[in-house]
């Protein structure tokens, strides 16, 4: 039982990270109808930026305080992501308004490769360490109930907490602020939004910027576990089944979809693995997504598109 719970918790933790990446997809899809293949590249780009700036800033300024360095690096990275968002809008999206979905999709593929390339050119292509000072030591929970308790990583715990806070903040932002309302309006109907004086261009910059910040958070968390390296961009591929499961237009869908896949992967690997020869973790998510595409294409929370007579 304790083992089961441990696996479950582990799944939830990694699920939370999938959710974060999926969230980036959903945000951009909601606001601009673009399926953003570059989300993974943005995670990598953000992680690299964070890793290198936290390394460079102490060198440039000659300071030792790790916390301050990380903070500065974070601020600089946010600015970098903002510039990226701005450039994407200026150079790509603006010229593709009202184009076919496929065209936009291709454009994001282009952006993905561009970011991968430029990122590694600027920041280098090694594996870089991100150390934001998260405690690594394990904790034991529920020792009174199970013998030996449940082992979890403090780091995972904090990561999950940070992700959850980010999700809550985003939901409030979307529901309560006037910009959030404008974002939802643009997502619903571009043309109408524009004609009532919502500036489409600025909204897109904001959305991409917000997506960039979620990418940054995901990049930091992931990077501090695995290091900032090229393989991070493939994380996006993990998030793909998550959005299919949760529904492309639903923020809660992205969260729950991420959790389900995270947990599903771990549990199936541990409990089914021995029977089918292991490696389930790699294809489990895609299998689940496939099943959903067949039986519930709008996902768990997505909007069902019904054509009324």
């Amino acid at each position: 039982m304790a083992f089961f719970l441990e696996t479950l918790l582990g799944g939830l933790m990694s699920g939370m990270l999938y959710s974060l990446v999926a969230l980036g997809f959903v945000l951009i899809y909601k606001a601009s109808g673009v399926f953003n293949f570059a989300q993974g590249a943005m995670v990598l780009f953000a992680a690299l930026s964070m890793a290198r700036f936290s390394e460079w800033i102490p060198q440039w300024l000659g300071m030792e305080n790790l916390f301050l360095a990380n903070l500065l690096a974070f601020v600089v990275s946010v600015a970098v992501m903002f510039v990226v968002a701005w450039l994407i809008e200026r150079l790509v999206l603006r010229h593709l308004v009202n184009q076919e979905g496929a065209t936009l999709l291709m454009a994001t593929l282009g952006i993905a490769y561009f970011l991968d390339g430029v990122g590694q050119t600027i920041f280098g292509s090694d594996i870089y360490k991100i150390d934001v000072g998260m405690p690594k030591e394990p904790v034991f929970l529920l020792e009174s109930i199970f013998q030996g308790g449940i082992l979890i990583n403090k780091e995972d715990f904090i990561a999950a907490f940070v992700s959850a806070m980010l999700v809550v903040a985003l939901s409030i932002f979307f529901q309560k602020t006037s910009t959030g309302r404008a974002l939802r309006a643009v997502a619903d109907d571009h043309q109408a939004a524009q004609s009532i004086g919502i500036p489409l261009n600025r909204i897109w910059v904001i959305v991409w910027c917000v997506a960039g910040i979620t990418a940054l958070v995901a990049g930091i968390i992931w990077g501090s576990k695995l290091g900032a390296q090229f393989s991070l961009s493939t994380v996006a591929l993990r998030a793909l089944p998550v959005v299919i499961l949760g529904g492309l237009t639903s923020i809660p869908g992205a969260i729950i979809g991420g959790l389900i896949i995270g947990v599903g992967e771990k549990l199936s690997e541990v409990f089914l693995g021995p029977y089918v020869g292991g490696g389930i973790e790699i294809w489990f998510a895609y299998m689940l997504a496939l099943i959903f595409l067949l039986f519930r294409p709008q996902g768990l929370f997505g909007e069902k598109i019904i054509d009324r007579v």
Partner: protein
Amino acid sequence: MSGRKIGEVILDLKNITLRFGGVTALEDISFDVREHEVRAIIGPNGAGKSSMLNVINGVYRPQEGDIILRGEHHANMDSYGAAKAGLARTFQNIALFKGMSVLDNIMTGRNLKMKANLLQQAVWFGPAQREELEHREKVEEIIDFLEIQHIRKTPVGRLPYGLQKRVDLARALAMEPQILLLDEPMAGMNVEEKQDMSRFILDVNDQFGTTVVLIEHDMGVVMDISDRVVVLDYGKKIGDGTPDEVRANPDVISAYLGASH
């Protein structure tokens, strides 16, 4: 209607020609709109009414001609620019934000008037919240004005057609426009709804002094509420004047009787 004074020309359209590829949608059309008046553009289906409205609103840019708004040239404005210039519009097939509540929809109309920046909004308390409340008050007045209190919190997509039209008008009014463009405000309504809508349009014009430009397919209602009427047929202007003048115009009569649209 005695208290309302029709003023100077506020919007002047000169020799507008609009082509889509080889098709000419509007050909050399000129007319003006005076401040505080209700100006109708009528014509059979396919006459180019919607194209005309889209030109005024900056959705289409005419190949030839000029748009002069309060003495300034505006031929190259887009629809965001039009909104900034004080033009609000409604849509023939209702372009509301379906997933959002009526209140949120109307609040989006206040977007241009909102000053709080993103950072203030992120903090929420303070200036952003105060501003939100001020605008909410304005929006509530419009809700009261259009008698849609009962659907304030309802998602727009769940409303019947007639009410959606009213919300569309409410959102446009929330912009406090100088010129209100209405794209077939009464299409698909029953007699009672049409009368309500006519009353609202006249009230808006009367209470706020808003200049109204409206497109209609159905001649009957329009004639009752308009000060002046432009008649289009196949992209050309065939009549312009008071409702009575237009009604007596032989070209107009033949366009409406001859064409069995």
